[in-house]
């Protein structure tokens, strides 16, 4: 399973973004996932979002753990550093990298095994700290690389490929994140790029951890009748009432925004989220309302998607720590080392 570079096929002039790059500049190496894998659609959405945001490709830092989902960091933005680390450990490694250099866009890609089982504790604490990063869970309810075991997100009663039903209660990353005080919680579907791209763009401009649970069917092991993570099941049960648009205020004239009373949320790092549709009396900035809405939908057997909750007022890890604006990694040694005179002085309290 080698790393395969994508062939460069000269096409007609491609549109360029604000920094003069085409979408190809945000692609990575060729995917080695199965044909039709939901994860490849998520990759494509990330490529699109980064391109449209005109992020300098090297200012992205790609973090992942181990599993099918975690392989996807190789498949976008090859001009960015990537770290395909150890199973479940993406969150602490991303936390450390972000501590060292706050001036980059951290894109963490994880899966349901990686984040809801082996790395569940780490994900919980990354959310608590509100690490400034995008945290995507490519959620397919199954262990793909080891060929089909149930994961912790498998619903009760959901059937495995050979028929047996899951009997253990699932971990729902959305409810978990909401209860932990997460500042940005979304759910989407890999088959719905139209919804996922604006969510990703809003996540990139969010201050703190933006958790995006993306139902991303596994075509090999969990796309059959009886599975609640199949394309068909998700399409039939998706409750798509909370639809955000991302408006990049850096590029668009805000005065021209439609004044139709739609809810707007200003993102910390620029841009606006405009909720095109919202259920009656639903306030995506109200955590309790979000929890209630999601719970109710689950009780009806529906899968609510969209930008379910956002709060731009919660401080991120660096604000809580009062970290200097200059990334720690750029501080010169002379400013970090107190020097010999201070050492002499310090030792006076030890005589």
């Amino acid at each position, binding site marked *: *399973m*080698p*790393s395969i570079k994508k062939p460069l096929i000269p096409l007609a002039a491609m549109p360029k973004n604000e920094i003069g790059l085409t979408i190809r500049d945000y692609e990575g190496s060729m995917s080695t996932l199965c044909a039709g894998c939901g994860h490849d659609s998520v990759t494509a959405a990330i490529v699109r979002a980064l391109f449209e945001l005109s992020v*300098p490709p*090297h*200012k992205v*830092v790609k*973090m992942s753990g*181990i599993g099918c989902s975690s392989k996807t*960091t*190789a498949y976008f933005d*090859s*001009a*960015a*550093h*990537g*770290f*395909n*680390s*150890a199973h479940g*450990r993406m969150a*602490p*490694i991303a*936390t*450390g*990298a*972000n*501590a*060292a*250099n706050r*001036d*980059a866009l951290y894109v963490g890609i994880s899966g349901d095994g990686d984040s809801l089982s082996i790395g569940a*504790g*780490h994900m*919980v*604490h990354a959310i608590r700290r509100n690490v400034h990063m995008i945290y995507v869970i490519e959620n397919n309810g199954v262990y793909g690389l080891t060929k089909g075991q149930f994961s912790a997100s498998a619903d009760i009663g959901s059937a495995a490929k050979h028929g047996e039903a899951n009997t253990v209660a699932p971990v729902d990353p959305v409810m978990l994140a909401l209860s932990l005080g997460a500042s940005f919680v979304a759910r989407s579907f890999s088959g719905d790029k139209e919804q996922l791209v604006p969510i990703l763009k809003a996540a990139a401009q969010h201050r703190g951890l933006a958790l995006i649970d993306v139902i991303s069917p596994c075509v090999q092991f969990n796309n059959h009748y009886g599975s609640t993570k199949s394309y068909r099941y998700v399409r039939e049960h998706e409750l798509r009432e909370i639809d955000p648009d991302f408006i990049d205020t850096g590029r668009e004239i805000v005065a021209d925004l439609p004044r139709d009373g739609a809810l707007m949320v200003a993102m910390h790092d620029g841009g606006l989220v405009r909720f095109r549709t919202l259920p009656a009396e639903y306030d995506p900035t109200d955590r309790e309302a979000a929890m209630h809405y999601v719970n109710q939908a689950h009780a009806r057997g529906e899968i609510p998607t969209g930008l379910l909750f956002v709060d731009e007022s919660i401080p991120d890890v660096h604000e809580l*720590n*009062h*970290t*200097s*604006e200059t*990334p*720690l*990694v*750029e*501080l010169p*040694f002379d*400013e*970090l*080392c*107190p*020097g*010999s005179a*201070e*050492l*002499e002085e*310090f*030792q006076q309290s*030890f*005589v």
Partner: protein
Amino acid sequence: MSVQSIAPEDSRSDGEPRINDFSLKFANVNGTGSASANNLILRAIFRMGVPVSGKNLFPSNIQGLPTWYEIRVSGKGHTSRSQRYDLMVAMNGQTYTEDIGQLAPGGYVLYDSTWPLPATLLRDDVNFLGVPLARLCGDAFSGPRERILMKNIAYAGAVSYLIGIDPQVLAELLEESYSGNQALRDSNQKALRLGYDYAEENLPAALPFRLEAGTGTAGKILIDGNTATALGCLYAGATVAAWYPITPATSVAENFHKLCERYRRRKVTLADGTVETRNDFVILQAEDELAALGMVIGASWAGARAFTSTSGPGISLMNELLGLAYYTEIPAVVINVQRTGPSTGMPTRVQQADLLECAYASHGDTKHILLLPADPRECFEFAVQAFDLAERFQTPVMMLSDLDIGMNDWAVDRFSWDDGYRPDRGRVLTDADIRKLGHFYRYGDEDSEFVTPRTIPGLSEHGAYFTRGSGHDRYGLYTEEADAYAQVVDRLAKKVEASAAHLPEPVIRMQDGATVGVITMGSCEGAVLEALEALSAEGTPLDYMRVRGFPFSASVRAFIDGHERCVVVEQNRDAQLRSLLILEAGVDGRRLGSILSYGGLPISAVQVIEGARREINQTGEQ
């Protein structure tokens, strides 16, 4: 009794007191505030210019269990536990029997004579000195908590009188300690006086041992290893620390935090004119040790100097990511303040039993650079070196301190700092470097020490690479090809081996006529040197080598080759240093004897002497 086998340093028998050569032991109940009293005595002796060491033998508990503190006064500067106690301050009724039983004949017991001692405890061959501490403090202080706390300071006063601590020095120390709290300073002064005056009026004027002010601590400081380690991390320029609370390593991170608050904070004026504090550091209290190392790896990968501090149980959890850092070649500094294992073991007791685990931590073929400091001064120096080595060799570096070094106060030479020091960041390429080279291969283009170049995420526009713990070739690309895989791991082996030349050389001391060498590491040093001195005096000179780093340098092997036989002294059950020497220095195990101490208390010179006699006799019999 075997504990009598070391003669006092000052063995005059003409009735003159022994000067600056005695040991005190304090038996307390933990959580009653005795630590500050014992520490006051230690610091006062140190400030009088007399070499002294203190060892805290404490339980894994917050309040109510027995705890002991030992102070050894040694004009010659011996620091190991003496096990020959001249004065026992018996403040814990639960342990009276054991404590009084431990005294050498002719020794003294200081006890609270508010209540009579049970007759069963009395010994004819020791002297009982009663001070009615509870009554004195009950009369002098009103609050119940204060009455308990001040009993400790009162006994410190009585002990000060008995051994000859200068009252002026005590007053000075209290002044410094409580400069911000006059009420506390006054009550401490008062309690000290109570004990001192009572002793002066009621106790013998002269004991057969006492202090005499000198200059033996000139140029020295009294400091614990964990503070020294934290200071080293600060001076090395570490900006990120991640840790999980664990005895006995907690005070490394806590001291680092205090130091950062003092030296790494600055005021910034915001656009609206408000002034705020900004921190040039991030300290993360992680969810577990696994995460702590993950954070260090992330921060180091992103170009910061980062470290974690932990103890054995934390190292067990970190095994997974130590392998990741080794294979992906990411610097990581890990401070391991060792305690007694296995499992939870005895968290407040010492051992050197993590050596083999740290040398080969993680699954697969791995080997790690280790630094083995013996005292707080080396903790400071090696902590700085750990960062240089980790970045130069792009690999984890573990510094193996221990509870004895880390949590006890040691009198060591003052630390010095060369302002010309510049961190060795290793082979980090900038975009300009890459343009000049024309290419960048993350795991290719090795230098003469098998180190390959890296780039920093987010800072390098043309140096992106993909870091993976899965099989990779010299370009960093995924591989399952045997040769491409082997090429990388073969280089890793050579790289770690090459680091040996940059590690601190062993400390070697040779004696005329010695044929047997004694090898040791870390906090065994004091006990071993004292034992060698005693053995030499009785006609058995032995050579000495203390190893300070792993992989072993050529001089380690040369020392062993230069002796018929060597004996390895260490604080673990399985002779781990001996095993490592057999495995890694190619030494024939039949030429290596072993002296082991693993009960959890710091090794004493007596243990080494007895072990050495046994080993040398064995050599004779062969």
